[in-house]
């Protein structure tokens, strides 16, 4: 299992080819978002993977950072994104991202990691 310790994320690719990206900090700004997207691209090795982003730790994410994560620049980093939320706070942030920032790639919010993985596997199979 390939692992990587980035500045923004702790990352690994599981046996299903899903990139797991866990936020290491509780706040995110534009510079952090750019770095984070680079880290996901780095572990993906130039191949677009489904990505599970664990946002349970996040408490604050700036407007620029949200927009960057939803932008064209980050599309090249993944096939689809499952956001894994836990607290009301992270769910609020996740829903906000889905509803207000409306990224142009498949994205869904989950409380349950296994359901998130199932969905990502399905997306990957459909893509294949």
């Amino acid at each position, binding site marked *: 299992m390939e692992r990587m310790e980035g500045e923004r994320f702790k990352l690994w690719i599981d046996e299903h080819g899903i990139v797991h990206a866990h936020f290491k900090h509780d706040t995110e700004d534009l510079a952090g978002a750019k770095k984070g997207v680079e880290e996901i691209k780095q572990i993906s090795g130039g191949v677009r993977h489904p990505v599970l982003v664990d946002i349970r730790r996040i*408490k*604050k994410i*700036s*407007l620029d950072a*949200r927009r960057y994560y939803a932008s064209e620049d980050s599309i090249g980093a993944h096939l689809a994104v499952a956001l894994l939320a836990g*607290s*009301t*706070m992270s*769910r*609020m*942030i996740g829903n*906000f991202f889905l509803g*207000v920032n409306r990224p142009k790639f498949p994205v869904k919010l989950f409380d349950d990691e296994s359901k998130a993985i199932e969905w990502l596997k399905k997306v990957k199979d459909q893509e294949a």
Partner: protein
Amino acid sequence: MHGEHDAMNNGDDRVRSIIEGIQRVASGDFSSPITVTGEEDDLDAIATGINMLTEEIAHRDKESNEKQEAILNILEDVNEAKEELEKATVALTESEEKYRDLVENINDVFYATDENGTITYISPIVSHIMDYHPEDIIGRPFMEFIHEDDLERIMEAFTDIVAGNLHPSEYRVMKKDGGYQWVRTSSRPIKDENGKLLGLRGVLSDIQEKKEREERLEKALTDLEKSNKELEQFAYVASHDLQEPLRMVSSYLQLLNRRYGENLDDTAKEFIDFAVDGSTRMSGLIQDLLKFSRVGTKGKPFEPTEMKEVVDTALKNLEIAIQDHEATVSVDEMPVASVDAGQMVQLFQNLIGNAMKFNRPGMAPEVKVGLGGSDTEWEFTIADNGIGIPEDQLERVFVIFQRLHPREEYDGTGIGLAVCKRIVERHGGRIWVESAEGEGSTFHFTIPKRRDE
């Protein structure tokens, strides 16, 4: 209990803080976010959500303002562009009016055809030339108006123009009353970027008067040539036929003198001498007239001739005169020229003979036959040291039977230089003289180096 109350109060404060934050946003103040305590409870989530919404609203508001400003800027640019366009349109309209004034008020006709030769535009001035109004002509083939005798030539010319060889064409066009009018057109082809012919544009000018002038001139020239030929023929026949009766007059006068001279007194004899002298001079005049007319009627074809031999022959014919006058004659190197050798001998003989005849008393004649010229013609010169010709008489010397001196001083009929002029002109050259009285004369004549025939 006390701690729960504190928490309750604390909760109330946070709810109040959130309500105040929402009121600020509602009043348009996006600058102060609601405080998030870090307890990560529902109130913090609500505060975070409201803060994020506030950011979005503020940002979109800013974007909207920027877009509005951009739209206003664009509108301003559009207005400026519109004003510029209006100015340009006014200028273009003025320019078009000037152009139209120009096109429609000058005497030349502007026209345009499509690729098939159908007239698509013609300026109104055409009515002055062809009596047609533009609307009678536009939409009709240009060729329809061209005189049938000119049609083939003009179609070839237009084909040439389409190929890029631009040149004016002169031809007749039909007027409204069925008559014809001479015009000249200068056309140029109009092609698209691929070289496909779109049509012709050009200028048509009225050349009726010019053509009529040319025709009159041509007729006058033809008449003149005919008249000249008739005159030459008349002079030849008349002089030839006059010879015989004149000879008879002279012979019988001399016979009268011989047989009856003894019975005549001196006055009668003197009268007979006058009559014989008169008939002799008349015979000389007739002989000269014959020579003069023979230049035109009895000339031989031009052939390449050694001019040195021509001059030598002339000098040989003048040998006695040269000896009598103790004259010296120098001759430059002479070319080969295409001439009638007999007439050339006569020409040199006349000119060199004149140099002997009009010498200064007590001074031996010095004659120099020279050669000059240009790329196209030879220029021969015969210079002498004789008595010269007064400036006001220089033109007269070439006129037939014009004498500058009394017969008693210099004999001759005054035809020699007129014959020279006819010979030179028959050869396509020019003759003139430069002279100053008492300082000698230089006669010049030219002969073309090449002949078309």
